[in-house]
């Protein structure tokens, strides 16, 4: 007996082998064989036993030792299992194509919508500007957002700042390019010569500006400096992409200007519509003062934060105020802001995009809840399958894994569908967003967007699948295989789970619908806003005379008069007038107003008014009513006393209770001369329908002959029919005057509310989708529950319950779910309303009637969804249901 194998080796062997017949059989065999070998020598036998032990360890790897080896084995097993799962999953999906289609469609829509919105968010908000270290670029507003400054102030900032590596100035500008290729109105900017270098942009051809070729601000009225930079698009379009254009002279605003370079395709500062840049020198010829036309862009030094720069700017502004008290009003510079350049260029679209992203996430949530419901409902049908597999030895985790694989396959199919939808959706976005929005052009499926989609798919798949998978695998093990399909009552657990899913859906759908209806009301109110003029039947176009060709005021007056005279003579035209800035055009010329009879105290600034130049017929043509005094007449021309007409709001704000007629006023645009108020007209909306009406002052064109005017023609016919004739008239008068922005005035109004309309449409669609999904969800759940409880209902009916009782019972269940959903949803909506505040127009976010109406709608949806199954419950035939199948 002592001739057994070495005990320690034997103990190791016994420990390594899996218990059961392998351990019993093998260790016994080895003992036996050892006994034979020991006769040939103990050492020989021991060595043999050792080698046997090694072989055992190799073939039956102990779980605790050699973790790496084990993990590799387990991974290999898992991989093999995964392959099997995938094949099984595809087979299962193929067997139930309808079920699979619904899931793929639901997930696909949700994922697709999210991807589309995210691609817009990515392109407009997340993607960095195409300049090196673009996150170091900031927009500097010394006197608050939107307040431009003058050249001397710019110099002071540039010289005095230590936090900013460099500061550049720019001002958006409209140029007129004439010569070969015809007269064209071109958007662009006047920039300080250091702007391209500061942005880090290298021209495609030629060079950028040098200091010497910039003209001072106070110089000639035309905007062309001694050099011009072309955009890539402009260069391709007008000059055929010919590199020899560099060095050639083109005519800008009537002046010959040499082209010094062409910018690369990616350069679109300040917006994608900019095509031409000229340099501006900002040598101060005067003391710094408030007001001006420049916006500042700066580059932060390394290690400096925007907050540091902001406090420095506040300090600089304060210093300027103290040093030049006459130039700056008391509180100038206290509203300074330093904003990352990207945010500054994007503006309010940011909120729109985030709201959309939130809404679309909600739709996906509702969709996932529906999908989860579907999985759970189907789980019942697979109970016998699960029971069999468990009996055959499948572990719970294995079952869960296989179910998850199925769900992942469906989710991936949904994601594919979603990507296709998103491609289409991204294009819609690209067209719906304003064309001058940086990044709007490039909306598409980038790498980051793809990564987002993949993550979203995984999350959506898990969300909708994990609970059903766990439940399915665990669930009904107590049912023997013979009892497939029948259950007495619905397990309380499952009922609660389904119920909570439905409640979630209802709550989310409520939030969506509330959001959508708030937007709807807001948009409705916005579109009902009276612009102050009648736009129907009015055609508008812009004609800007190149200033160098029209150096005399009388020439400009004559041109405008000539255009108006000929246009009025066209058949069907009722009247024609001109104004220098299109109402609702999005831009403004503002200045401080001084009243002669009410002098200002030192350090005080007059109210800011919107300054406009118009011809006498303008008011009549667009239907602005005359409220007091008179409009402009032919006597108001150069040499005659300067006159002005003010708007109702200006009269009310500046001369409350008094008669403004006869008062003398002036603005910075009028120079030294005081103008006499001769009339008061109705207000018109200026920038857009949503902003509050500014006080407005009008000067007659005959006295202030601006070269660029916007013409308005009222006609009895279709406005667009006049487009061709109008162009011909202008071209006939002077081929060098470009005609641009030809559109009916109705389009202008429509354009100004395009973004709110887009938002409203999308939110409406999402709200409807969410509501539909919730309705389907609640119907599905109640219907399923009723189906499960058919036997129970049969029993109840047999025991004397009336069908109506059952009906109310089921309805009651649905109502309870609905109520819970409403409560949660209402609190959610209250939160949402906070976010919507920024885009809602004159609608209180916590609008009582809206909430009430939506709650009623949702309650009816819940009831309706429960009603049909409830009827079925009431109609259960106890005989049939109790007799089994």
């Amino acid at each position, binding site marked *: 007996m002592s001739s057994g194998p070495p005990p320690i080796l034997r103990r190791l062997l016994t420990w390594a082998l899996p218990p059961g017949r392998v351990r*019993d059989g093998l*260790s*016994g*065999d080895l003992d*036996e064989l050892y006994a034979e070998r020991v006769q040939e020598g103990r050492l020989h036998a021991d060595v043999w036993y050792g*080698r046997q032990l090694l072989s055992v360890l190799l073939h039956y790897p102990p779980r605790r030792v050699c973790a790496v080896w084990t993990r590799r084995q387990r991974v290999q097993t898992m991989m093999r299992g995964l392959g099997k799962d995938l094949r099984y999953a595809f087979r299962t999906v193929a067997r139930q194509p309808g079920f699979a289609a619904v899931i793929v469609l639901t997930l696909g829509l949700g994922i697709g919508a999210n991807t589309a919105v995210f691609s817009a968010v990515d392109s407009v908000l997340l993607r960095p500007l195409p300049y090196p270290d673009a996150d170091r670029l900031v927009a500097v507003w010394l006197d608050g957002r939107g307040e431009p400054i003058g050249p001397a102030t710019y110099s002071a900032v540039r010289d005095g700042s230590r936090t900013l590596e460099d500061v550049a100035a720019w001002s958006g500008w409209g140029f007129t390019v004439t010569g070969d290729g015809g007269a064209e109105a071109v958007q662009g900017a006047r920039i300080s010569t250091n702007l391209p270098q500061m942005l880090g942009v290298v021209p495609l051809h030629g060079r950028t500006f040098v200091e010497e070729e910039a003209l001072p601000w106070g110089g000639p009225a035309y905007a062309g400096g001694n050099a011009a930079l072309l955009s890539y698009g402009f260069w391709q379009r007008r000059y055929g992409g010919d590199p020899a254009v560099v060095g050639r002279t083109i005519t800008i605003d009537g002046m010959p200007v040499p082209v010094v370079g062409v910018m690369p395709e990616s350069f679109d500062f300040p917006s994608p519509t900019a095509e031409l840049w000229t340099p501006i020198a900002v040598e101060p010829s005067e003391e710094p003062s408030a007001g001006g036309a420049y916006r500042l862009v700066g580059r932060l030094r390394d290690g400096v934060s925007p907050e540091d720069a902001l406090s420095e700017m506040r300090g600089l502004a304060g210093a300027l105020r103290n040093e030049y008290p006459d130039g700056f009003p008391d509180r100038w510079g206290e509203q300074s802001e330093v904003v990352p350049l990207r945010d500054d260029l994007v503006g309010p679209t940011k909120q729109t995009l985030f709201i959309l992203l939130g809404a679309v996430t909600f739709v996906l949530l509702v969709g996932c809840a529906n999908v989860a419901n579907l999985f759970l409902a189907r789980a019942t049908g697979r109970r016998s399958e699960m029971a069999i597999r468990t009996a055959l030895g499948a572990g719970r985790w294995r079952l869960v894994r296989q179910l998850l694989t199925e769900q992942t396959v469906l989710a991936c199919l949904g994601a594919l569908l979603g990507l296709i939808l998103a491609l289409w959706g991204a294009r819609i976005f690209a067209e719906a967003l304003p064309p001058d929005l940086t990044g709007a052009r490039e909306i598409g499926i980038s790498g980051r967007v793809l990564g987002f989609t993949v993550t979203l798919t995984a999350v959506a798949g898990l969300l909708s699948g994990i609970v059903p998978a766990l439940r399915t695998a665990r669930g009904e093990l107590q049912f023997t295989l013979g009892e497939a399909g029948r259950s007495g009552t619905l397990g309380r657990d499952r009922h609660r789970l389904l119920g909570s899913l439905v409640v979630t859906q209802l709550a989310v759908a409520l939030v969506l619908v509330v959001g959508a209806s708030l937007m709807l009301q807001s948009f409705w109110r916005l579109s009902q806003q009276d612009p102050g003029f009648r736009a129907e039947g009015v055609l508008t176009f812009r004609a800007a005379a190149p200033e160098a060709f029209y150096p005399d005021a009388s020439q400009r007056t004559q041109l405008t008069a000539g255009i108006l005279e000929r246009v009025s003579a066209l058949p069907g035209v009722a009247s024609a007038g001109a104004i220098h800035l299109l109402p609702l055009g999005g831009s403004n010329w503002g200045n401080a107003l001084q009243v002669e009879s009410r002098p200002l105290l030192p350090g005080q600034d007059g109210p800011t008014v919107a300054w406009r130049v118009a011809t006498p017929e303008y008011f009549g043509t667009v239907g602005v009513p005359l409220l007091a005094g008179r409009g402009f007449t032919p006597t108001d021309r150069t040499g005659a006393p300067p006159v002005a007409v003010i708007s109702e709001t200006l009269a009310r704000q500046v001369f409350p209770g008094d008669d403004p007629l006869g008062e003398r006023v002036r603005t910075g645009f009028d120079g030294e001369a005081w103008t006499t108020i001769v009339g008061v007209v109705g207000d018109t909306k200026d920038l857009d329908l949503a902003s509050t009406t500014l006080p407005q002052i009008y000067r007659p064109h005959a006295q202030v002959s601006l070269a660029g005017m916007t013409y308005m023609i009222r006609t009895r016919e279709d406005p667009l029919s006049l487009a061709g004739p109008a162009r011909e008239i202008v071209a006939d008068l002077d081929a060098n005057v470009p005609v641009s922005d030809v559109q009916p005035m109705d389009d202008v109004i429509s354009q100004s509310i395009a973004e709110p309309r887009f938002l409203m449409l999308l939110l409406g669609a999402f709200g409807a989708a969410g509501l539909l999904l919730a309705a389907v969800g609640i119907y599905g759940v109640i219907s399923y529950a009723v189906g499960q409880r058919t036997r129970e209902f049969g029993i109840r009916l047999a025991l004397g319950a009336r069908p109506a009782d059952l009906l109310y019972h089921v309805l009651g269940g649905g109502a309870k779910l609905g109520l819970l959903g409403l409560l949660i949803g209402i609190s959610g909506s209250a939160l949402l309303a906070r976010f919507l505040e920024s885009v809602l127009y004159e609608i209180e976010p916590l609008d009582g009637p809206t909430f009430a109406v939506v709650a009623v709608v949702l309650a009816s949806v819940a009831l309706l969804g429960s009603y049909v199954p409830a009827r079925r419950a009431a109609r259960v035939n106890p005989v049939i249901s109790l007799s089994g199948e």
Partner: protein
Amino acid sequence: MPERAALGEFEHLVLATALRLNAGYGAELVRELEERTGRQVQGGALYSTLDRLESKGYLVSRMGEPDSRRGGRPKRFVEVTPEGVRALAEQRAALLRVWEGLEAKLGRA
């Protein structure tokens, strides 16, 4: 069972030996195999092969009585199933077909 999994070389040897022994147990198989093939048989390899053959349905095993001579461990007896016999026959036939006419090349094997 439409398609039959192929037998590995060692599997084939083990299965054939089990067939020969009729209702042999582990140690017997080891002795027989070592004698006939002339090479050392590792217990771990043998047993995992037996497991595999059993999972393929070619063998069935059962445990015997605890044997005091083996430290109380019972023996594991194996028997070849009809499927197993068929698999062996098929593979043998295939081998013979492949070897048809090749004996001459074996020469001084």
